[in-house]
């Protein structure tokens, strides 16, 4: 009789242990063997860091510094250093695309990036008819790059707008590196060059 009780007791104990170890609820990440390896004690990119007054571990670059590899070509180009201001916008047109050569590969990469980051509003045809605008969610029409004012917009001004934002468009500096921004603009300009070659005037392109 004692043996019998022992067996039943042992089994019940194991069962309750197993149930205890089970995870419950979608908000419970469950148990881990070595918490200090799973939840890093070193600062992670997004962790709270009380060393800094704003308590963030991710730091912006020190003003005036150039992160390695973040410019197009360290010898040929200093980073785009116009500040965000109306007067800077006015002179931004003088900045030229510093990419040394624009190859087919540059344009293809520019198109890929455009379709990810820009086409959601500006449309894959660059006509301002992106999915967000067409579905009526975005209240104003994004720029249609086939219109004359954009055909003649200098690439430096475009770069300023992508870097700092313009009107309801925000800054894309945190998503696109300087090289990528110039690649996107090279792609836009290559499409616009086809419009200009066709001698397109405002009436023929403005059709809906």
């Amino acid at each position, binding site marked *: 009789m004692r043996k*019998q009780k022992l*067996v*039943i007791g042992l*089994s*019940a104990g*194991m*069962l309750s*242990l*197993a*149930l205890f*170890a*089970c*995870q419950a609820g*979608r*908000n*419970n*990440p*469950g*148990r*881990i*063997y*070595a918490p200090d*390896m*799973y*939840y*890093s004690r*070193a600062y992670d*990119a*997004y962790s709270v860091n009380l060393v800094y007054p*704003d308590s*963030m571990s991710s730091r912006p670059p020190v003003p005036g510094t150039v992160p390695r590899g973040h410019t197009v070509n360290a010898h040929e180009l200093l980073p785009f250093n116009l500040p965000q201001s109306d007067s800077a916008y006015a002179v931004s047109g003088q900045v030229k695309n510093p990419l040394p050569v624009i190859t087919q590969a540059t344009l293809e990469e520019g198109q890929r990036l455009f*379709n*990810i*980051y820009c086409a*959601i509003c500006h449309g894959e045809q660059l006509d301002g008819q992106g*999915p*967000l605008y067409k*579905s*009526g*969610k*975005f*209240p*104003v*029409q*994004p*720029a249609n790059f086939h*219109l004359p004012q954009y055909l003649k917009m200098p690439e430096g001004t475009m770069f300023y707008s992508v870097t700092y*934002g313009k*009107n*309801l*468009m*925000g*800054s*894309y500096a*945190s*998503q*696109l*590196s300087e090289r990528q921004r110039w690649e996107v603009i090279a792609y836009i300009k290559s499409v616009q060059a086809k419009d200009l070659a066709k001698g397109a005037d405002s009436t023929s392109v*403005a059709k*809906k």
Partner: protein
Amino acid sequence: MSDFSYFGRTVKYLVICSLAFCMFSFSAHHVYADAQRGKQLFQQNCAQCHNPLRDATGPALYGKENEVPGGRKWIYNWVHNSSAVIASGDKYAVNLFNQWNHVQMPPFPQLTNQDIDDILDYIKQVGDEAKQAAAAPAAGGQQGATAAAPASNNNLLYGIITLVLAIVALILLQVNRSLNRMANEKEGIETREPVPFYRNKTYIALVSVVLFLMAGYFLTNAAVNIGRQQNYEPTQPIFYSHRVHAGINQINCLYCHAGAEKSKHAMIPSQNICMNCHMAINSYSGPQLYTPEGKAVDGTAEIQKLYYYAGWDPKQRKYVNAGHPIQWVKIHNLPDFVYFSHEQHVAVGKIQCQVCHGPIQNMDVVYQFSDLSMGWCVNCHRTTKVHFADNAYYSNIFMKYHEELKQGKIDSVTEAMLGGTDCQRCHY
């Protein structure tokens, strides 16, 4: 006689009705006569900053016509040269300019008064139509809210059915035994006094074995799953729905997670990336959202939470304070002793996000789709064929495999062949 008068009345009534209808439709037609032309002009000149119904770079335009001090004449002046109107010291104009953070409306001298009239007609048409549409379907909206209740879980039903069947089986067994005994008694065969089940050795042995197996199964499973968080689906500080953004609105994953092809981290988007769109999109208009528990979620209120975190004042349309970090709950957590880089997998390996993260474009609340166990990693490395031959990353290395591919000795290169199952590839 009475029949005739009835007929006459009906005719009269019909005539009046149709006349009224004609007049109404004619007048409506007249008001919006040039709205079509106005629409085109609006799209070409105004739509980049203005929406008829919603504030954008500039204010919503519907109703402004009745609001401005000098009627249409004021609007003509404003459109032709707004800075001159402000400079003239016009009180309404100065107020407007200050209220909109000193954003200057560019002059449109090329628009004639007729053009502006047409545009205003178009704005009025859009606004009137929206008003009518808002007044009509009050009943329809309510119906939608109740209809889309989340599907219930079937497990409970299966459990009840199993229980009922088990009880039925037990009763049948009991009946069978009683009948047997009765039959035996009738035939005069002596039956032994039945042993109660808790002292029946066969029962005890059987139950212990089953209990032991079950306990072992659960215990082993639980032990193996320690440190894995499959199906972890935490509540986030903002009810951000990937289904709405990546699914319905077709926003590319990389738009927000721009780091996925540039760094180890896929990048939790910073708030300026949210605000790229949400500066303008301040209300939610998609399908009704539900938490996994089936509670309805107000999408517009969730966008307001974003404004709080970003320090954005939607009324003044500018950032008014430094904001607060959104403390998203991390779901996919690899321990420190594992190296993992998104860049390698996304940029070089060209692996789709969904391979590891599951149908993310259908998730309202993200859950961990894969268990992220080592076996899961290694299995994929063993079976995944690498984009090898036409990949610039591999063009000058692993020449042996290039040779063998050319000679036809192998038809593909798996990740394991490139050292993808070596310990130190991920643990160092």
